[in-house]
């Protein structure tokens, strides 16, 4: 009873080697078959993929009629998507009624835009300030005169002739660049100590956010002519722009407000105690911090605006979706069972590429600007 000492007299058996934690099988075990439920879900998921992917593949690629196909091929019973239709009508989808010999003008605008905008997006490229000034102030004026013509011997192109992707991009780029500052001003106004301005901003934001965009555009198309003096008309493109911009800026204002509210009071006070005026305080101290907080929200508003451009058909603009619909309906030589579907799919893919690009860029920016706020 007294001697509890224990001395091992032989070697312990070696333990089996640990489970492999790398390699395909281990990965699958961890990520696919961890529990019975997981196994079931995995099997269901694979069955779902097997059910969904082949028909989609066949429609898009397998049985599809390529860009050089003919309408007869598209009319065959087994044919999938009719890409020949898209390539044949591509010019209308991109430029609308813009005169074909003048297509070089929108092309230059696209190219200039890409040239100025892409470096602006890349953090490493220098000369940000010059670049931004060029993009925000010089580029719009150059583009407008290039597109509308009437100067330097360029053939005048009224906005009624603009259409397709061109209009979608114009509305979204102008809408984004204008709604952002307007949204900030509205957000600041909402926090203002001046009752009149505060009430106005709150009223505007809440009213606009409460109603569907479709009714704002209805107003722009049916009621706006009534509001103007007799004989004064406003260009349709401008109506679409104003409608979409004001609509988005109200949402933007709410996003920015969220960021402003996240800034501790001390920051405001510190700014004031340095003797900075209101705008200096906002510009140098508050907004840089506030906006960084709400990048995802801002980009989501941009994406929403981009998608919302599909509604400007209400004011009679032929944006990408409406251009596709017009051709679906009137291109009699391309009528086949899948023509319209292919048109819609094309529009969906274009929208998707732009929106997905924006959301990826927002994630990239968020990571880059993340200076340790994340919990």
């Amino acid at each position, binding site marked *: 009873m007294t001697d509890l000492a224990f001395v091992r007299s032989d070697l312990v058996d070696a333990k089996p080697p640990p489970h492999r934690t790398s390699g395909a099988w281990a990965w699958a075990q961890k990520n696919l078959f961890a529990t019975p439920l997981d196994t079931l879900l995995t099997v269901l998921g694979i069955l779902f993929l097997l059910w969904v992917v082949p028909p989609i593949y066949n429609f898009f690629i397998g049985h599809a009629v390529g860009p050089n196909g003919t309408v007869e091929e598209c009319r065959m019973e087994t044919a999938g998507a009719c890409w020949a239709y898209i390539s044949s009508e591509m010019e209308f989808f991109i430029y609308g009624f813009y005169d074909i010999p003048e297509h070089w003008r929108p092309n230059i605008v696209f190219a200039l835009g890409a040239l100025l905008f892409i470096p602006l997006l890349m953090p490493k490229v220098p000369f940000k300030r010059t670049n931004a000034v060029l993009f925000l102030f010089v580029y719009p004026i150059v583009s407008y005169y290039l597109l509308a013509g009437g100067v330097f011997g360029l053939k005048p192109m009224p906005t009624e002739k603009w259409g397709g992707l061109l209009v979608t991009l114009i509305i979204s780029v102008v809408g984004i660049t204008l709604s952002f500052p*307007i949204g900030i001003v509205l957000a600041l106004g909402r926090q203002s100590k001046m009752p009149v301005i505060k009430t106005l901003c709150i009223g505007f934001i809440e009213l606009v956010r409460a109603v569907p965009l479709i009714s704002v555009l209805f107003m722009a198309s049916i009621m706006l002519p009534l509001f103007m003096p007799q004989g004064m008309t406003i260009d349709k493109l401008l109506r679409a722009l104003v409608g979409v911009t004001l609509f988005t800026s109200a949402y933007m204002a709410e996003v920015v407000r969220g960021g402003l509210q996240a800034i501790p009071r001390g920051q405001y006070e510190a700014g004031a105690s340095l003797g900075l005026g209101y705008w200096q305080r906002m510009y140098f101290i508050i907004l840089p911090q506030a906006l960084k907080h709400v990048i995802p929200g801002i980009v989501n508003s941009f994406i929403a605006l981009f998608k919302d451009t599909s509604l400007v058909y209400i004011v*009679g603009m032929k944006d990408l979706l409406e251009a596709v619909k017009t051709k679906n309906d009137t291109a009699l030589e391309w009528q086949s069972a899948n023509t319209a579907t292919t048109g819609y799919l094309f529009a969906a893919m274009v929208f998707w590429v732009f929106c997905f690009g924006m959301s990826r860029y927002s994630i990239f920016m968020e990571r880059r600007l993340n200076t340790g706020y994340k919990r």
Partner: protein
Amino acid sequence: MQKTLATIALAASLGLVATTAQAAILDDVKAKGYLQCGVTGGVAGFSAPDSNNVWTGLEVDFCRAMAAAIFNDADAVRYTSLTSQERFTALSAGEIDVLSRTTTWTMSRDTQLGISFVGTMYYDGQGFMVRKADGIASALDLSGAAICIESGTTTELNAADYFAANGMEFNTVVFVDQDEVVKAYEDGRCDVYTTDSSALAAERSKFANPADHIILPEIISKEPLGPVVRAGDTTWFNIARWTYFALLEAEELGVSQANVDEMLGSDNPAVKRLLGVEGDFGTPLGLTKDWAYQIVKLVGNYAESFERNVGPSTPIGLERGLNALWKDGGIQYAAPIR
């Protein structure tokens, strides 16, 4: 709100806001250098983009004819595509100079909206299209059938009237856009598709199997489709009306785009008056003497426009029918130019 104003001001400086005096439309149009014409968003044969993305159609030709009469240039037209809801406001607010958009001439529209109908470019009537397999012979068999209809048109009301008058049960599905109406009918959502019979024919030609669908014999309404101008400017109204008459008169006198130059030497006094060889009918309208010559030379006569856009040789394949000249059994009739 001030943002709006600021934007408007900015846009005004860029030329996107146009202010025009109300008084004389012709002077404004001449000063602008082009005619602003309101058209549909795309109805094949009447106004739709062709394969070169240029507006074409019977109603587009009317605008081109007006431009030819005013500017001697049929291409001096700018087109605004309008929805059915906004077309009249756009016209009365001065956004467009003439509306040529499958618009039915009705009394209330003519008298209550501050607009004037010029004439009838196309005599239409509302009809019904059904599937052959349903074995329907008459519109009176349609009680309880599901009907696809476009909203904002006289079509909706006509159908309601017709069903009520015949004590039939009325059952509609209403869409804002023509495309969806057709597609919904084609996919079987409705038994019946109703609209103007010209459009029925046009849409049927697009179906995969046009022979599977029939258009019922009943025409339940009168749908005179014509161009419209703002009320109150008689000169402008006359230019529009006589452009329309000139198209008809040219057909009646056998003057066509091909032979118009030969016809200048014709001995027929009516042809001479039409083409401005004898007398001057253009100047009192504020046009040139050869206004009708320009119309025929640049656009053609009514028959040519009809053939080119909606006639039997086009996919739409409409017969002249009511729209033949009066002497050919139709009711298209132009007042004489004298």
